[in-house]
């Protein structure tokens, strides 16, 4: 993989975040069809997919350093964005092992893991980290093992303990969420933390998804996509900080919607952890400004149709009513009525 990491951009304040042409073309566009409805859209998480965003088990991209700096800012302001309950100790080490092994395998030029029994050596070149530690001994790391490694991997994470026939959200690192709170959800069951989602409960989606996840097997991770719309490329759209980012939504108008409005896609991965038998839920978020997305012809047309025909309750849940019409009006100019192929690949090699 030929990955060039940019100097840190900002995800707050002046929002200097932009996508290079390469980053646009590798964006994990979420709509395979012209219409969107909730489904258990789960598939095996194997390397490879419609764009190179699927080439690694845990994707690192050009925004890595800026992402991690933004996470550190959020954690400094609110340490409760990372919490792990005490009985999840083995799941913490499982997470550290999985992430270190995946990153060093997929990006050997950036990350190196050397093991000598339980004496491990971790090198993270983009963040200038060189750490010797003893696997299984928390006191040999500057943070708990889960916090230590998730400060170095893009995307939010939760660890879910399996007991009593359900999953419990018993830990997480959540600094780039689509308006949900780990501090509120920690300790909840699968059905409890999904409580606010409209329509899907009635359709039995969560009952089926839970039954499937309870049977998730070691060595067979799965993934699904989720998406929302965000005003500005902001990672920390948390309920805790709504007073900061909420007013920014009101600033969206037809003149700035293309530049400031972002499609936010989550590549969600679910991996059974071997020691703890817990599940690691990765929520790898990608942000793309509408004017960047519109440079891919197929995506502009499809996005127009999906947003135009979206079920009103889903639009409401995703916080869209205020600017839905602006988005539709902007994208309508790209929609020439042509038939689009199924699938999410950009179907063009350059912009």
């Amino acid at each position, binding site marked *: 993989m030929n990955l060039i990491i940019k100097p840190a951009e900002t995800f707050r304040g002046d929002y200097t975040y932009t996508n290079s042409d390469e980053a646009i073309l590798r964006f994990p566009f979420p709509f395979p069809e012209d219409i969107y409805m909730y*489904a258990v859209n*789960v598939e095996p998480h194997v390397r490879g997919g419609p764009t190179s965003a699927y080439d690694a088990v845990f994707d690192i991209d050009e925004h890595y350093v800026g992402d991690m700096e933004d996470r550190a800012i959020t954690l400094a302001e609110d340490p409760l964005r990372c919490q792990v309950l005490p*009985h999840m100790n083995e799941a913490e080490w499982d997470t550290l092992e999985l992430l270190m092994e995946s990153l060093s395998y997929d990006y050997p030029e950036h990350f190196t893991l050397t093991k000598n029994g339980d004496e491990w050596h971790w090198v993270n070149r983009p963040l200038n980290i060189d750490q010797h530690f003893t696997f299984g001994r928390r006191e040999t790391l500057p943070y708990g093992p889960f916090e230590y490694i998730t400060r170095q991997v893009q995307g939010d994470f939760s660890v879910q303990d399996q*007991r009593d026939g359900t999953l419990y959200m018993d830990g997480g690192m959540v600094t780039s969420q689509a308006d949900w709170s780990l501090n509120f959800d920690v300790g909840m069951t699968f059905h409890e933390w999904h409580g606010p989602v409209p329509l899907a409960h009635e359709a039995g989606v969560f009952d*089926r*998804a839970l039954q499937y996840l309870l049977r998730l097997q070691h060595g067979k991770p799965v993934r699904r996509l989720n998406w929302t719309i965000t005003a500005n490329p902001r990672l920390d759209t948390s309920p805790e900080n709504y007073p900061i980012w909420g007013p920014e939504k009101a600033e969206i108008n037809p003149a700035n919607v293309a530049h400031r409005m972002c499609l936010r896609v989550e590549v969600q991965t679910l991996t059974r952890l*071997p020691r703890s038998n817990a599940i690691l839920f990765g929520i790898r978020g990608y942000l793309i400004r509408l004017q960047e997305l519109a440079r891919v012809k197929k995506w502009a047309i499809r996005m127009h149709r999906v947003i135009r025909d979206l079920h009103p309750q889903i639009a409401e849940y995703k916080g869209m009513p205020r600017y839905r019409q602006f988005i539709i009006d902007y994208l309508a100019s790209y929609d020439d009525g042509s038939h689009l192929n199924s699938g999410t690949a950009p179907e063009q090699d350059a912009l």
Partner: protein
Amino acid sequence: MKLILAKIKVLSPSIRHFTLAPVSGTLPVAGAGAHVVLEIAGPGRVWKNAYSIISAPGAATYEIVVRRVEMSRGGSAWLHDHAQIGKVIEVQPPQNLFTPPRTARKHLLLSAGIGITPFLSYLHVPGLNYEWHHCGKAEDAAAFKALLPDAAHVTLHTGRNALNLAALLAAQKLDTHLSLCGPEAFMDFALATAEHAGWPAQKIHKESFGGATGGEPFTVHLRRSGHTINVGADQSLLDALEAAGLAPPCLCRGGACGECKLPVLAGVPAHHDHYLSATERAANDAIMICVSRAQTQELVLDF
């Protein structure tokens, strides 16, 4: 994956300790409660036997302890009578259906016979607070003594009624969880005793192997494509269709997503999925081919 039989230790005439090493590379980590399935080729069929892994997570080898079953299906008899050091065995990657309940402040472990094995793996959990009572026949006492840790909170009971289970359960505090593994009759007795003592179901855990995709073989006729395909005991309907060169729709391969639903035109499906509603199941006019099978010898599908 292929593992090589690296060591055999005889613990008693009917109990042996086997060490399995990777042919190359390293083994997937197996946590407390995990098992592996050994695929042992016999005359005309393959036995798939599940055994708890008793070695530590991340160890270089998997260790299992196997009792030679008197009415052996074949697998344990082969391991005892024919397996030799150096033999390469096909092994399915570890899975875990018996994780220790990690919110328990104390684990009361209760096992009998070869049910000793999953709890040997629990001993690797850092800081586990446990009390273990193991019941076994007198002739196996030496074997079990060799396996059990030499500690005050571990007791080996030999002979009938050696353990006063009702008293043991009554003495536990509210934050104790009970974990059980042993022969069916032992489990039934322990469960009944715990229920009688007022233990809530959430605090009782028992080993149960499940999730197998196999079952009785059957035949499927595909009306539209005109194929007739035999589904073997060790394969799913989806596997059989794929093996015949077909590409039916599928996604999760676990009975949840709904993608592989096919209409049933004749025959009665045996539903094992989590997708169809109770009404849809009762109608028997659709099947999730990734996990479900047939109650009848033949099924006719609209595909």
